[in-house]
């Protein structure tokens, strides 16, 4: 397993990006339909600065859809999502929500980092090229500055020697670490992880979780959809259990693993632990 350098990961981007509000993410009464199928049936969730929330639940419970709604990769039909003080995807006109302009949505997304299950690195760009693309193109960071930050980030996720490699030349674990660095380079107020380790071979899961644990320890605000209960036990401030489009239970890891209240939580945990 690759050793992660002891230095602080977030130093590379100038420390923990601070949110402008106490609650970085505020989701109220979120409903989402796919056609006639109601996938999210009223989800509410507050995530405070520096908090790490792990979302778990059986397949089809709506957890991936939920996290994709937070940065508006999915349209929502009801409810409101506020990240860092900005209403996401919609604006209010006469008390009604109307779809926002793409330009505004893009601006709001700059504050939300996203890590995908399948990495989605840009295959025509090197590891470093993947990281500096958005800071230069979206934030307008000067190229030399972006490269310096990109190199630091790569070093901190243990891939300093891979900056000229293309994604296809990297292992799954390495690709996912580049993807995390790519998201961090935008200095997001919150990081969303959508099952970041479930497309990885078992021996590569550890190296990705190490980076995520380091981020959590350094105070990054994170929402993580994952079945990695070891990770949840170690770094989560709160675990949220979803089933059939609803949050059925939430609490500290201690509560969750020692004293779950719901039958469905118990049966889920018994299957997964």
């Amino acid at each position, binding site marked *: 397993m690759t050793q992660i350098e002891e230095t602080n990961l977030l130093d590379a981007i100038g420390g923990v990006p601070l949110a402008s509000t106490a609650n970085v993410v505020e989701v109220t009464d979120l409903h989402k339909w796919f056609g006639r199928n109601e996938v999210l049936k009223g989800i509410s969730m507050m995530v405070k600065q520096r908090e790490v929330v792990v979302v778990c639940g059986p397949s089809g419970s709506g957890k991936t859809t939920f996290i994709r709604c937070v940065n508006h990769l999915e349209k929502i039909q009801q409810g409101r999502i506020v990240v860092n003080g900005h209403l996401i995807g919609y604006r209010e006109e006469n008390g009604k929500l109307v779809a926002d302009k*793409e330009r505004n949505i893009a601006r709001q997304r700059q504050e939300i980092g*996203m890590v*995908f299950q399948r990495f*989605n*690195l*840009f*295959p025509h760009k090197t590891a470093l090229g993947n990281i500096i*693309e958005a800071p230069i193109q979206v*934030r307008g960071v000067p190229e030399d500055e972006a490269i310096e930050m990109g190199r630091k980030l790569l070093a901190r996720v243990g891939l300093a020697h891979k900056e000229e490699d293309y994604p*296809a030349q990297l292992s799954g674990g390495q690709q996912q670490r580049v993807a995390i660095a790519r998201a961090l380079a935008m200095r997001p107020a919150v990081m969303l992880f959508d099952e970041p380790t479930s497309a990885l071979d078992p021996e590569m899961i550890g190296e990705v979780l190490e980076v995520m644990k380091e981020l959590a320890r350094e105070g990054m605000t994170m929402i993580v959809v994952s079945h990695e209960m070891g990770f949840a036990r170690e770094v989560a401030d709160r675990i949220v259990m979803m089933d059939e489009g609803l949050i059925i239970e939430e609490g500290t890891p201690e509560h969750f693993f020692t004293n779950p209240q719901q039958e469905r939580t118990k049966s889920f945990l018994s299957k997964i632990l």
Partner: protein
Amino acid sequence: MTELQRTRPFRAPRPARAVGVLLLLGVVLAGCSGQKSSFHFEWDLFINSILQPDDQIKAGLVLTVVVSIAAQLIGVVLGIFAALGKMSKVRPIRWFANVYVWIFRGTPLIVQLVFFYYGLGVAKIYLWPDITIGPLTIEGAIQAGIFALGLNEGAYMAEIVRAGILAIDPGQMEAARALGMTPGKAMRRIVLPQAARVIIPPLGNEFNNMLKTTSLLFVLGVVELYNVFNIKQGQSFRPFELFLACAVWFLLLTTIWGFIQSWIERRLARGTPGAAAGGPGVRARMLSFRRPPIDASVVSGGR
């Protein structure tokens, strides 16, 4: 995908094979001329048309190449816009792009050519005056030809570009937008550069076609490569030798283009694994490098 599957990378004939074919052709021709029939193959006319082309032939060659490049460039630009138009969220734009492709793929090119040149001219909509840029004068007929060829080509390129864009994993667009790019920027910076690698092989085939299709401009009186030989055979009444020479010229053009195309494809394949000689074919590499090596079974979960 059918557009992509249909096209194959150009394979240049091996020198030995090419020489063999030419020798065989020579034997056949010699046989023909040696027979009791009254026809006599004029070797000098045939050979000189190729080895010592006169100014008319040279001018025709240049015109064919220039018109092909110009029309293809127009076609690529129109094709990109039409492809984006076909995928637009805005209904009128989608409708407009669909109608454009429908009309230009659904009518014969020769009809489009005569319509734009003679039709518009006689109707006094546009008279296609000659344009003079410095020492260069471009005839109206050539302008009309380039215009019509480009419009026609754009309709075909639209489908090729669209197929190229659709071949890119939607996750690429999502990742770009999650980083705060607008849809336009994500398309330009992330999706189109990747689609280009998929589009290049069929684009090469389109240009090969374009080189030959320019011969249709003879209906507008443009003296391009084919028309040069057509005029010559009308004067000398040696269609056999002259059209054979004409064919050799076109074959030469498309063969040279074939070499250029495979050079471009090799260059584009750089930076992808297996780019070294002996790996899978260029196209196989270009189509496979995007797919992360993931077991399909683990991708399914999540929602």
